[in-house]
Each structure stands twice: as structure tokens, then as C-alpha cells.
């Protein structure tokens, strides 16, 4: 008896009870759909994290203020170090701005790093950040202000889409010019590729001239949108908007990948010395130096944990689906005990009966698997286009999940099928 014969028998049995078939497929379908969706989200997240980290720039070191454990230290010392920073710091109290608390990292630190390590450090971009209200005509948006120097563009691997970036002169003169990120442009005009060059926008009720539009960097997962930003000269941001004298972080572009460990070490020891820190390190550090590889590993370990959790959910739902199939098959065997007896009486071997029920279970799970795959892919697409999630469905995922669902069907179909196959013909025939 060929496989096509078992197939025919199974199809007829499944057709004769459509409702039962559909219900048992449902479990497997949901299992496979969840699996595909989960893997799609996991792979999408991993990819966007990688993209985001790589998009930050090449050979990048980042220095953040604050201790490794995010605790703010050395409150007393910050007052002494602020005096060494900008001479032109005119504190504006007229405008309220939210910002990270005053830290210990200063512009002078940045200038010293640039001056002392030309063999390893190519460029350095000090940065300050804060939340602001941006207005264009009648439209209003909450956004982030980023104050930096023209080096930012090259250090952080950003490009200007329209117009230009501000110049060193504009920075030195506290000019009120700005460059806009694509998300902010969209929030203001409804169009992410709008051209606002030459127009005036208001940042915390102060007018700024738009000189350029930034190309989109793309959204990562979890982190803030790097394109929801208005970039202005560092000195302008520190003096006019944030009213601070320390900087939030430094982006350092190294000469080459080989120089990165050296640069990291040089920067670390220089900052320890300048901040008068005493061992033990790194516990007593008031800053953190990170490189891209660290970041990638850190964020990928997060997405890995998430993927593992979701995969556990997927496996559980596949098992539940399999148990559903087993229940339905056991019911089906019981219901058709007499039929099994008849088949045996007219010459069916145990193997024939086993195959009939196994093929039946496999059809349920494969059809359920395919339906689930379609469901999973569709929801991954919907999630990407309406939820803004980054999802990646690979052919491997599809094939593996369908194969696994078939495996689940066969695994959970074996017990009922064996039960049917080993029945004694006379007992099966007598079954009421």
C-alpha cells in the first residue's frame, strides 16, 4: 500500500469531520505563527541594533559622564571643575530646559584629549543634550536638542541631506542656527523629507535659522529615535538653552581600528588624572568609555534574552498544539474502533493502520503549520507596517517551523496511531 493510498484514506477521514480537523489544526497554527513572529521580531531587533551601532560611525569611542553603575558621584567636585570650562557661559534663566544633571565632563577635557593624542584620536565631538519645545509656524513638537561641534558629522557618521551643517565659526559665535533630523521634520510638517532650509524655527521660544536637514539614521529598538533631533552649535546649546557648563558625552573617532584600545586607555587615564580620581578603578570612575563592540554586545545580549524568552513561548505553544493533535487523534481512534476492526478483518496489517493514523496526524499538523506560517508572515508584515517594528522573516524560519510542526504532529500522532494499530481485530469489532 503506497503513501498515496494512506493519504487518500486520511483526507477522507479528515473531510468527514471538518470541524474537528479545523480545531486540531488551530493549535498548531497558532504555535507556528507565534514562532515565526517571534523569530521575525528577534532577527529584526538584532539587525536594527547592529545597524544603529554601525551607523554611529567608524572607530568610535564614546565617553559618558557618570559612574559605570549610573550613579551620580562627586557632587562637590563638579563645582570646581565647572570654572575651568567655557568663558562665555552666560546663564539664561528665561527659558526652562530639561537636561541631564551637571556632571564632571567638560569641554576642556575634550580639547585636552584632542591635543594630547593626535596619533590615536582623529576627531572629537563633545555633545550636550536636552528636551526642548520646537515650533514652526503653528505646529509644535516636543523634541531633543543636541549641541555639538562640526566634527559631529564625521565622528558620528551622519550626513546632511539638504543645505549644510553649521560651521566652527557659527559655533564659536554662539549663533542661532540649526540642522533638523528627519523625524522632527516630519513632526513639524508631516513630511520627513521636507525642506525647511532658510526658514526660522522656534526652539524654546527662541528663533533659530535652519541651515540644513540631516539624512535619517533609522530607528533602532528600545532606544530614543536618533532622528527626532534639532542639532545646534555646542556653545549656543550650553549657553542659551541648557544653561550648563559641563557636557553630556564625547564621541571620539580613532585613527584606525587598531588604535582603538590605545585611545580608550589614553582617554581613560587622562580623564582620571584630570578629574583627580583615586583608585580603586573602575569603581571610582565618574565617566564611562565605551566602544562600538561593547555596545553591540550589550544590546545584542538584551535582544538575545528577549528572543530566548519568546522562543520558549513559541516552543510551549507548539507543544500545546501537539497535545491538541494527540487529543483529537485519540478521540478519533476511539470513535473509529469498529472501523479499525473492519479494516483488520478484511486484511489491513498493523502497519497499514499505523500509517493511516500517522499520515492523518501529519496532514493536520502540516496544513496547520502552513496556515500558521501564513498567519505568522502576515502578522510580521502588519507589525512592520503599522506597528513600526522591524521584523525579518527568513525562508529558513518558514521551512524550519513547518518541518517542526510536521515533526510535532508525527510525534504526538504516534501514540494514538499505535493504539489503533495494536488493537485485536475481534475486540475492535465488538467495541460499542
Amino acid at each position, binding site marked *: 500500500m503506497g503513501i498515496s493510498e494512506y493519504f487518500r484514506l486520511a483526507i477522507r477521514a479528515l473531510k468527514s469531520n471538518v470541524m474537528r480537523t479545523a480545531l486540531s489544526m488551530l493549535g498548531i497554527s497558532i504555535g507556528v505563527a507565534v514562532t515565526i513572529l517571534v523569530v521575525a521580531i528577534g532577527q529584526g531587533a538584532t539587525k536594527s541594533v547592529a545597524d544603529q551601532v554601525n551607523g554611529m560611525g567608524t572607530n568610535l569611542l564614546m565617553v559618558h559622564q557618570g559612574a559605570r553603575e549610573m550613579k551620580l558621584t562627586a557632587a562637590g567636585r563638579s563645582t570646581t571643575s565647572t570654572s575651568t570650562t567655557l568663558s562665555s557661559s552666560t546663564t539664561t534663566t528665561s527659558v526652562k530646559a530639561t537636561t541631564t544633571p551637571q556632571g564632571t565632563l567638560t569641554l576642556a577635557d575634550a580639547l585636552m584629549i584632542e591635543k594630547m593624542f593626535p596619533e590615536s584620536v582623529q576627531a572629537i565631538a563633545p555633545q550636550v543634550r536636552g528636551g526642548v519645545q520646537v515650533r514652526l509656524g503653528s505646529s509644535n513638537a516636543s523634541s531633543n536638542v543636541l549641541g555639538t561641534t562640526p566634527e559631529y558629522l564625521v565622528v558620528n557618521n551622519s550626513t546632511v541631506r539638504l543645505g549644510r551643517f553649521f560651521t566652527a565659526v557659527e559655533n564659536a559665535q554662539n549663533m542661532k542656527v540649526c540642522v533638523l533630523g528627519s523625524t522632527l521634520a516630519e513632526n513639524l510638517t508631516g513630511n520627513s523629507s521636507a525642506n525647511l532650509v532658510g526658514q526660522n524655527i522656534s526652539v524654546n521660544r527662541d528663533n533659530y535659522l535652519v541651515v540644513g536637514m540631516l539624512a535619517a539614521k533609522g530607528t533602532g529598538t528600545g532606544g530614543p529615535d536618533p532622528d527626532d533631533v534639532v542639532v545646534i552649535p555646542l556653545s549656543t546649546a550650553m549657553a542659551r538653552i541648557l544653561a550648563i557648563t559641563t557636557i553630556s558625552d564625547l564621541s571620539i573617532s580613532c585613527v584606525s581600528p587598531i588604535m582603538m584600545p590605545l585611545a580608550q586607555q589614553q582617554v581613560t587615564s587622562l580623564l582620571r588624572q584630570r578629574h583627580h580620581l583615586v583608585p580603586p578603578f573602575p569603581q571610582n570612575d565618574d565617566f564611562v568609555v565605551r566602544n562600538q563592540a561593547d555596545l553591540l554586545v550589550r544590546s545584542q545580549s538584551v535582544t538575545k534574552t528577549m528572543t530566548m524568552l519568546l522562543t520558549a513561548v513559541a516552543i510551549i505553544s507548539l507543544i500545546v498544539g501537539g497535545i491538541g493533535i494527540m487529543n483529537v487523534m485519540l478521540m478519533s481512534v476511539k470513535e473509529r474502533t469498529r472501523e479499525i476492526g473492519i*479494516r483488520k478483518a478484511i486484511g489491513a496489517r*498493523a502497519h497499514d493502520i499505523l500509517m493511516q493514523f500517522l499520515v492523518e496526524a501529519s496532514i493536520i499538523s502540516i496544513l496547520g503549520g502552513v496556515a500558521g506560517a501564513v498567519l505568522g508572515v502576515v502578522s510580521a508584515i502588519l507589525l512592520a507596517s503599522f506597528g513600526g517594528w522591524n521584523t525579518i522573516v527568513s525562508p529558513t524560519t518558514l521551512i524550519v517551523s513547518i518541518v517542526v510542526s510536521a515533526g510535532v504532529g508525527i510525534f504526538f500522532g504516534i501514540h494514538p496511531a499505535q493504539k489503533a494499530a495494536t488493537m485485536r481485530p475481534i475486540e475492535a*469489532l465488538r467495541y460499542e
Partner: protein
Amino acid sequence: MDRVDLVDANVELLLRLRDITKEYNIGGQEVYALDGVSLDVNVGEFVAIMGPSGSGKSTMMNMIGCLDVPSGGSYEIDGAEVSSLDDDELASIRNKKIGFVFQGFNLIARTTALENVELPLVYGRIKDRRNTAIAALQRVGLGDRIEHTSSELSGGQQQRVAIARAIVTQPRLILADEPTGNISTLQSEEIMQIFQELNDNGVTIVMVTHEEDIARHCKRRVEMRDGKIVSDQPIEDRLVAKDVIEQMKSQAITRKPLALAGT
């Protein structure tokens, strides 16, 4: 045309039962459904098994049909000792050598007559199933009902599908457990006509029946009681189903009650 003598002339043993017992343990008490049955059936015989309810007729038929195993004794079919065969060999004997007609029709539900009849051919891995199955259905007069499922057929028609299924593999032995229970007299006669035709063609038939009129279509009458064979005799005044049917039809036209005895 007397084939009985022809077969008797060169006797070939088909079934050989010796001291067959079957015991059931019910509530700690041993019940003998078969209590030392010995029986020889030659090729070409047509045996009626009779006896009161519970006398062990079905139990013996199930043994002969290799559906059940005896507790003791020996049983040979076609020279092979059944207790020495494994499950697949038994399945093969059921498929190729034996056609079983059950009392309760035992057709597979929601399945057409044709598919039911094809099934033994499927399990026998035989090709050209459809035409063979249609031929078997035509033989039992159901050539126009092949696509009907059992719920769309009368009791007599269902029994004829069961017979078609039993004969489709051209077995040497037909076992029928009360094939004429629960159906009308005319339909019973039609079934007996099919059996008589098969027997005329050399098929051995063993049939359980409660009805004396049906048993008289056979050639040999075995009577059981309490799991034992109490009498075993040839049938002298044999009925021919074809004649009985003709008589019934002519009587139906003149609207007289059926009178079968003394034909």
C-alpha cells in the same frame, strides 16, 4: 448439473479444527464459549452452523476467520497451523483466503459502496481495483448503486455490499455470520442465491443462521449447543434460491401468502 458429487470425488481438506476451546474469565469464573470443537470442512462445501443463542457459533466463526485466537486445540487452514502464524501472515490470510460477511453488515460509515468493496484490494496491494470492485458489485446486483454510502442503502443492499466486499478478492472461503438476519425474506433469498452461485463455482461457504428455511439452502448442517457440536448431517431436501424467488414472485402477483415449506 451436480457439482456436489464432482467435489466429493476429489476431496481436499480446507479447514481442520481439533479440540478447539475458548474460555472467558467472567468475574473469576471460567466460561467455555467453545468446549472441544472438532470439525473438518472440505473445499466446495456449504455448511450451515445452527444452534441456540450463546452456543458458541460466532466464537467459532471468529476462530475460523482468524479474527480471534483459541485458548486450546489446533486449527489448520489450507494446511497451515494458524497458531504458528504472526500478525501480518494472519492479516494476509484474512485478506486473500477468507471473505467475512458480518451479521451487522459492518460497512465503513460515510464511505461509498465502491470504496468499501475496493478496500480489501487496497490492503492486498492489487491493481485495477475500480473495475474489479465494480464487477463484484454487479455480481451482487448493485451495479447501479456504486456511489451510494451505507446510509443511502437498504439493509439488504448493505448486506449485498458486504458480500461484494467478501468476494472481491476471490477468496476460497466465505464465512457469513447470520447474513440474513434483520432483512426481508425476499432479500434473504437473493443473498442465498448469490451464495449458491458462488458455491457452484467452487467457493467453500460456512454460514451461521437461526432460520431453518435458510439452512436448507446449504449442503451440510452442523448444530451446536453449549460450545460443542451436537449434530452434523448432510441436508437432504435442499432448496434452490432461484426457484424460491420465482415462486415468491408468482405468489405476490396472485396475492397469496408466502408458503415456502414443501417446495
